[in-house]
């Protein structure tokens, strides 16, 4: 058994930023399924938002309003105010830590346009902003030398919560196959999103919702799971992200006829409408037969008019991705794109200091925190604005760290039934070997992903989701019959695949059921059978509680509204 | 066929036999060579690190000299070749910088480099300009029975964008040439590795180990000799072979030939004219032939 004051699960921006806050004061460990530099924060491309006003007269007030409106009024406005108020300080801090940022001619941080933001607000490092920020924090782990313990390539299996008190985690050392209890006075989950349940996704293979499911299985409800963001510019068939910054720099979206179709959907913002609206517009173009390609199943991102020099300076990664993955030279040709599952708005409910809620009444789990994409605080509501996710991870990672610094010295290490916990984790693993092998886990995973993309995607309806619901129930049943074939101890990917699929099947059901219950259209959740927003009945957060039989119960809690009453959302 | 022959420094110093062989081979093939007696050192990637602009001016001067002769350049050293190509590519990709280099060049020499001259290594001339089929016809003394390990050296294959190999990750141009000359090419693991020469003075142990691994690998694959298009590889693998042997603690005794020597021999140039006796590891079997 290992023991630390604080165990942080996840090594992306939120996890590392929290660790930085703690490392000089407490014994802190970071547990990560990959290596810190490989965390998915690094895949964010276009920018990080802050109303610096370096290139126009942007204000924090405008950032707050844009974010509230972008969230389709489901975002909690007190949290959004914190996010936007703290943004300039956060950017300056990262700049001082060494993050390389693209600059203006007068040597300040440059800022570019992004969807749903009414000013040039996105600070950026070419189109590798997440990478630049992540590596800046990874560099800090070297600065802190041996003080920060990093458990790289450990898979987190269980969160230990008893009597409303968090006591640690059970994790699997992927290098040895050994299960271990990591005891802690406080645990922070910064374990990322859950986009892997979709076939067309920009998410890394690691984004299988391990954190949220571990919390859920430990008795924590999950909030707003039905809200999954579809990014408008996923590379066709691959789903790989091509930054919204490409449109921020002036890129067009065109259909097969070469028509800039956004003029019909968001005439004032055009391509820089919020992601939910742009993705739906693309899907409508495709559904109505104006898609490009032999199967008319994609639209095009046209960058040609930007010219080679600008593309190479501002969008080099976009250039390389199109070139390397589908052989398209975006200087010469438009790039085939389609909506791709991108961001999980839902997750572990937490307050503005990242303390996790146990219910809809504001009861906390003692010593359990969540920050970043795995959390739902909720600053993004029903639809996140681009560039607000890197910001959230940094702002709330730091806040979680500060809060833990504040409360952890007053927390005792609660007792842990090590033997019992290890046995439980071991039994969960053994079950994956015990099936008769008549079902194949890869087939189940592919079916799940197709179901989610095609039936719980950009456009949803009751009938599709009911089909998805029964499909997933069937897949869960079939999952019992899979059999892990690899008996090896080290790097047993076969076992990890199975653990991850078990998580995906568990939370996919919550996405579907939350969506089915929510009979309205709001932000990323759009129902063709309930195409309008219904503030009377649905201006509220969904909370899914796990029941003892493995099912769940949906309850709701109100949205925090401080200054901006819901209004019609037009772009 | 006529080329401006760029000798480089080693052909005037510790590798004079390479120049002799290249001249003799070209004579046999009817390839006319005009030696560039005024061309300066390419910088060998070293002057470039001390002062990139000076290195680029030196090389632009060399190119301008060839342009004045109206000839393409033939190199007999892949390091010179690689450095030249890299310099040309750099200038061509940065027009403003090219102009700057030309201004400096003009100030010192009255010349400008226009971008017309091509640089080719001796073996590339044979492969692409002369043609292997034609060369095969000229072979009067096939090197039958000789097992030869081609050692490409770094500059022949890297960076891939400045060489003409069909498949730089797994080239076979030198093997093709060996085969045309009647010898048997031997493939071995280390044929694309570094010989260690550039760090001979910085970290001799590493340099000797790199050279030693290459020779040992060729020997293990059954090679009678190694053959290289780079006289610097030749120097490290040949002149230092006794030191390499003592570091590895084993005898190697693998002769290291220059490509032009091999070509000249197959074309009927007497071994005695090729100064094989100057090699530290003498290719005694070849010398007797």
């Amino acid at each position: 058994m290992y023991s630390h004051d604080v165990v942080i699960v996840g090594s992306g921006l939120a996890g590392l930023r929290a660790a930085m806050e703690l490392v000089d004061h407490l014994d802190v460990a970071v547990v990560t399924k990959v290596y810190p530099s490989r965390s998915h924060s690094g895949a964010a491309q276009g920018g990080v938002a802050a109303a610096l006003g370096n290139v126009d007269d942007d204000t924090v007030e405008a950032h707050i309003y844009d974010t509230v409106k972008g969230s389709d009024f489901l975002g909690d406005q007190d949290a959004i105010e914190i996010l936007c108020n703290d943004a300039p300080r956060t950017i300056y801090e990262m700049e001082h830590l060494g993050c390389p940022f693209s600059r203006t001619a007068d040597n300040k941080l440059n800022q570019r346009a992004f969807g749903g933001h009414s000013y040039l607000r996105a600070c950026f490092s070419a189109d590798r902003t997440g990478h630049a920020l992540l590596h800046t924090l990874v560099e800090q782990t070297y600065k802190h030398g041996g003080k920060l313990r990093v458990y790289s390539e450990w898979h987190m299996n269980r969160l230990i919560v008893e009597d409303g008190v968090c006591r640690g985690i059970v994790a699997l050392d992927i290098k040895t196959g050994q299960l271990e209890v990591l005891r802690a006075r406080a645990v922070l989950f910064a374990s990322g999103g859950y986009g892997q349940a979709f076939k067309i996704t920009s998410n890394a293979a690691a984004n299988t919702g391990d954190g949220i499911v571990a919390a859920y299985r430990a008795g924590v409800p999950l909030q707003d799971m039905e809200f999954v963001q579809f990014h408008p510019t996923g590379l066709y068939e691959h789903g790989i992200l091509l930054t919204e910054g490409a449109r921020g720099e002036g890129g067009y979206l065109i259909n097969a006829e070469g028509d800039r179709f956004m003029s019909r959907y968001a005439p004032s913002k055009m391509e820089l409408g919020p992601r939910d609206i742009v993705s739906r517009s693309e899907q409508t173009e495709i559904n109505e037969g104006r898609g490009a390609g032999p199967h008319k199943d994609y639209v095009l991102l046209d960058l040609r008019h930007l010219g080679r020099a600008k593309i190479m300076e501002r969008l080099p990664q976009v250039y390389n991705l199109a070139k390397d993955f589908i052989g398209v030279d975006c200087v010469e040709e438009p790039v085939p794109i389609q909506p791709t599952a991108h961001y999980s708005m839902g997750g572990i409910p937490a307050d503005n200091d990242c303390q996790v809620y146990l219910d809809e009444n504001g009861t906390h789990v003692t010593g359990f925190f969540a920050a970043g994409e795995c959390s739902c605080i909720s600053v993004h509501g029903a639809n996140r604005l681009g560039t607000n996710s890197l910001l959230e991870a940094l702002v709330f990672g730091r806040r979680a760290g500060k809060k833990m610094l504040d409360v952890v010295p007053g927390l005792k290490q609660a007792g842990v039934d090590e033997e019992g916990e290890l046995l439980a984790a071991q039994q969960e693993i053994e079950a994956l070997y015990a099936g008769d092998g008549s079902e194949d886990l890869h087939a189940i995973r592919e079916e799940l992903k197709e179901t989610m993309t095609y039936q719980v995607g950009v456009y949803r309806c009751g009938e599709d989701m009911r089909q998805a619901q029964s499909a997933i129930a069937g897949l869960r049943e079939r999952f019992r019959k899979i059999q892990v074939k690899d008996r090896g101890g080290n790097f047993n990917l076969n076992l990890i695949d199975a653990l991850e699929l078990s998580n995906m099947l568990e939370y996919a059901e919550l996405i579907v059921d939350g969506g089915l219950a929510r009979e309205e259209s709001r932000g990323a959740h759009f129902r063709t059978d309930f195409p309008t927003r219904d503030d009377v009945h649905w201006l509220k957060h969904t909370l899914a509680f796990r029941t003892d039989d493995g099912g769940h119960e949906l309850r709701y809690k109100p949205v925090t509204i401080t200054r901006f009453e819901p209004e019609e959302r037009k772009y | 066929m006529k080329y401006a022959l760029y000798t480089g420094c080693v052909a005037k110093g510790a590798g004079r036999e390479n120049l002799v062989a290249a001249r003799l081979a070209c004579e046999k093939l009817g390839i006319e060579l005009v030696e560039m007696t005024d061309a300066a050192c390419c910088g060998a990637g070293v002057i470039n690190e001390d002062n990139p602009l000076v290195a680029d001016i030196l090389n632009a001067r060399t190119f301008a000299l060839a342009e004045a002769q109206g000839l393409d350049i033939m190199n007999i050293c892949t390091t010179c070749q690689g450095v030249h190509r890299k310099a040309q590519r750099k200038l061509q990709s940065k027009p403003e910088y090219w102009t700057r280099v030309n201004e400096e060049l003009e100030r010192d020499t009255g010349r400008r480099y226009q971008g017309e001259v091509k640089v080719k290594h001796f073996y590339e001339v044979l492969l692409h300009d002369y043609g292997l089929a034609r060369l095969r016809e000229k072979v009067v003394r096939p090197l039958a029975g000789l097992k030869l390990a081609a050692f490409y050296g770094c500059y022949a294959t890297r960076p891939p964008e400045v060489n003409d190999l069909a498949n730089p990750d797994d080239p076979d141009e030198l093997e093709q040439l060996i085969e045309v000359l009647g010898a048997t090419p031997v493939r071995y693991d280390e044929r694309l590795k570094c010989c260690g020469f550039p760090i001979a003075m910085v970290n001799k142990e590493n340099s000797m180990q790199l050279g030693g691994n290459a020779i040992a690998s060729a020997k293990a694959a059954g090679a009678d000799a190694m053959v290289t298009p780079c006289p610097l590889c030749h120097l490290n693998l040949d002149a230092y072979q006794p030191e390499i042997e003592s570091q590895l603690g084993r005898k190697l005794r693998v002769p290291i030939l220059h490509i032009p020597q091999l070509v000249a021999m197959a074309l009927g140039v007497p071994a005695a004219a090729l100064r094989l006796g100057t090699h530290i590891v003498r290719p005694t079997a070849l010398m007797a032939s």
Partner: protein
Amino acid sequence: MAAHKLIFRIQRFDPAADREPRDQDFEVELPPGITILKALNKIRAEQDPTLALRYSCGSAICGSCAVKVNGHARLACKTQVSDCADNGVLRVGPIGNLEVLRDLVVDIDPFLESLGRVKPYLVAEDGAAPDHERHQSPEQFLKIDPSTTCILCAACYSDCNVLEVDHSFVGPASLAKAHRFIFDSRDTATFQRLGTISEQTGVWDCTHCGECSTRCPTETKPLERIEEIRTRAMADGFHDNAGARHALGFRETVGKRGLLDENYLPARSMGFGNLPGLLSLVPVGLRMLRRRKNPPLIPPSIDKADEIRKTFARFEELRK
């Protein structure tokens, strides 16, 4: 295009079962446009779930999936199978210079630890709670732009020729990381960094083989960064090492006669005060003398060396 059949020859190694790595052939039928990573995952799904590899983002930014394809390090996720197949066989193995843990998975800790040797973080004086950004010009940003694109995939480390013979060499990725701070206008430790990096096992130990830049899947291109560091170290007067003296030897002899003086250069590189170093040159010198392989005692010169002298005379001026 239709699917085509191919043999994937994959190096397998399970420390629990194998004493030596072994090759295993998998016949696969692949659709066009498929990457190595997707093909490997197809093999895991359809043929052998025990195949171990690393991958995550699938879009060439996380740096997890470097493997050797046909003997050279590549990112599996961005490498098209169609670019690599060779006579119907495609070889995949773990990256080099690191211990294999299982199949395609290596222990990357030595690689990550090597980064620690170059103080891989910004050193600056300013306080921790800034209320504005530091200024940096777009040109200054562009200087560090290439080296900041590194994704720590270790492809360069894998194929570095020097590391193959000496694991104490700091390595190409670490040097690129050092570059990222040496050339960062905000960093205040440039002098110390250049000093440390000029020492043995540092920037001058690179043999210039070019493997790092050739294998690098990003714009980092370590060799180019190494060259820039050397230029900077030379300019800032870090001359007390064999690599710098070697460069000075070029400057002094080529700058005089247009060609190298191969008798002078080795002694200059060793350092005229370095008696053991000079003595180590004696055997090879005598050996070459005996075979008349020695460079001529009167150094060669080009026809119009005065032109070269003019250029070199302006050396420092041209540096700017």
